[in-house]
């Protein structure tokens, strides 16, 4: 029955679903796992960097992307769709800056990206994006982690996983997560969560990690404004060495 309604995105099925979005979520579930964890003083996002062949030069592959100095994002699903969304998110952030001379707070940028993704579920001749995003940022309200789905809905999370291994990873995180976690612990937890479903050898070149916050970053006197950065392979190696 739903086959009749599955070809046209902009038609509801009798059961009240937009079947194309369901299929888009299936595409996401086939992508490699990504993790996001919010700590008291920062946020970490991480993903596997699985190359189809050892001949691929994976230093050129960027899965964790900087959107603006206070916001970064990672995905699960189709890489090319992610590239398009990264460009749109970066442009939205710069457009905001041109008007207000400051970068957008995380929630505002997430709304922008989500409304772009929603547009592609209500227009003619387009298909939804085949990615779920984990967007992390640190603004005056504090650290924030958001997930955005192909439908355009978004939620804030304390810790989340998307992609192939998301069910097991979320169960794992539910046990491991506590509200008092600091950024260092969060990075550690993110790595071991990734390791749970990892196929093959996990080393500093096969995972990508991005962090914002930690240490003396924050808002207020005597603190530096937090900046999103990707961990270098050397830094990842240090973290991996601490894991048995």
């Amino acid at each position, binding site marked *: 029955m739903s086959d009749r309604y599955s070809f046209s995105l902009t038609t509801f099925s009798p059961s009240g679903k937009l079947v194309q979005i369901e299929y888009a979520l299936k595409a996401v579930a086939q992508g490699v796992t990504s993790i996001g964890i919010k700590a008291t003083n920062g946020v970490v996002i991480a993903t596997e960097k699985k190359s189809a062949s050892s001949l691929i030069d994976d230093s050129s592959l960027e899965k964790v992307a900087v959107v603006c100095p206070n916001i970064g994002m990672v995905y699960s699903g189709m890489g090319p769709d992610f590239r398009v969304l990264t460009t749109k998110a970066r442009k939205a952030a710069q457009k905001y800056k041109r008007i*207000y001379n400051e970068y957008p707070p995380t929630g505002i940028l997430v709304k922008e990206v989500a409304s772009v993704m929603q547009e592609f579920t209500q227009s003619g001749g387009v298909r939804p994006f085949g990615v779920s995003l984990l967007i992390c940022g640190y603004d005056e309200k504090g650290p924030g982690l958001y997930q955005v789905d192909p439908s355009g809905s978004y939620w804030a999370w304390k810790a989340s996983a998307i992609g192939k291994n998301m069910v097991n990873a979320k169960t794992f995180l539910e046990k491991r997560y506590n509200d008092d976690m600091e950024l260092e612990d969060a990075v550690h937890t993110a790595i071991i969560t990734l390791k749970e479903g990892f196929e093959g050898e996990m080393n500093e070149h096969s995972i990508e990690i991005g962090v914002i916050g930690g240490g003396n970053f924050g808002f207020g006197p005597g603190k530096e404004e937090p900046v999103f950065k990707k961990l270098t392979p050397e830094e990842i190696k240090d973290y991996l060495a601490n894991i048995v």
Partner: protein
Amino acid sequence: MSILEYNGGVVLAMAGKKCVAIASDKRFGSNYLTISMNFPKLYQATDKTFIGFSGLATDVQTLIEKFRFHINMYRMNEERDIEPNTLAHLVSSTLYERRFAPYFVEPIVAGLDKNNDPFICGMDLIGCTTMNYDFSATGTGEDQLYGICEPLWQPNLEPEELFEAISQAIMSATNRDCMSGWGAVVNNTRESDHAYAEDPHGLIGLLLVRQINAVRIETLHLYAKLLTDQSLADVSIRNIMTVAVRHREVFYDVVSSCGM
């Protein structure tokens, strides 16, 4: 005469210690003809920020409405009030959008930031911002305002002293400018109260009284004495002004009893 001078008017802003004040005159004219003597040019954007617009009156009115729209949308989207420096950039970008067919206004943004430190920013009609630490003036009586502000302003003025300084400055300057005057509106905000204290008639009444008739000053002195319970010699103009601000209702009585 340039189109910026057609309707006349001035706006002045001054920074003090954890407080800021912005003032405008109340004249609205059509060249030499005065049409209204109650056209203040200030807009309260948030609890702690103000924008004042001098220049063509239709653009003043339109931009007040335009910025009300932007500020309300900002408040609903971001779930917080806009900061004064952010507002200043918003005003600047809005003006620059019309770079080749500009709004004929020269605004001043004044407010307290999240640490309650004063922020002042003057702009030209296409959005060039100048963030002064002391005072900022725009309008037909700009030169006169800068002239009187320079000696009157000092760093770290308390709210009452700031109020007096800005009031004296705007009244003296508008007296020397034919295109502005007919009283002033002073909005000031300080750390302790995030609501502004508007004193349109108290100030104008007091200063007009000073100019018109010395006798009426005596009446005010007596009144002030009664209210503050000080000996007559101690009562200075500054005390009277402070008293007049705090007891506007009483002051109206005095003014009406003086037959103004």
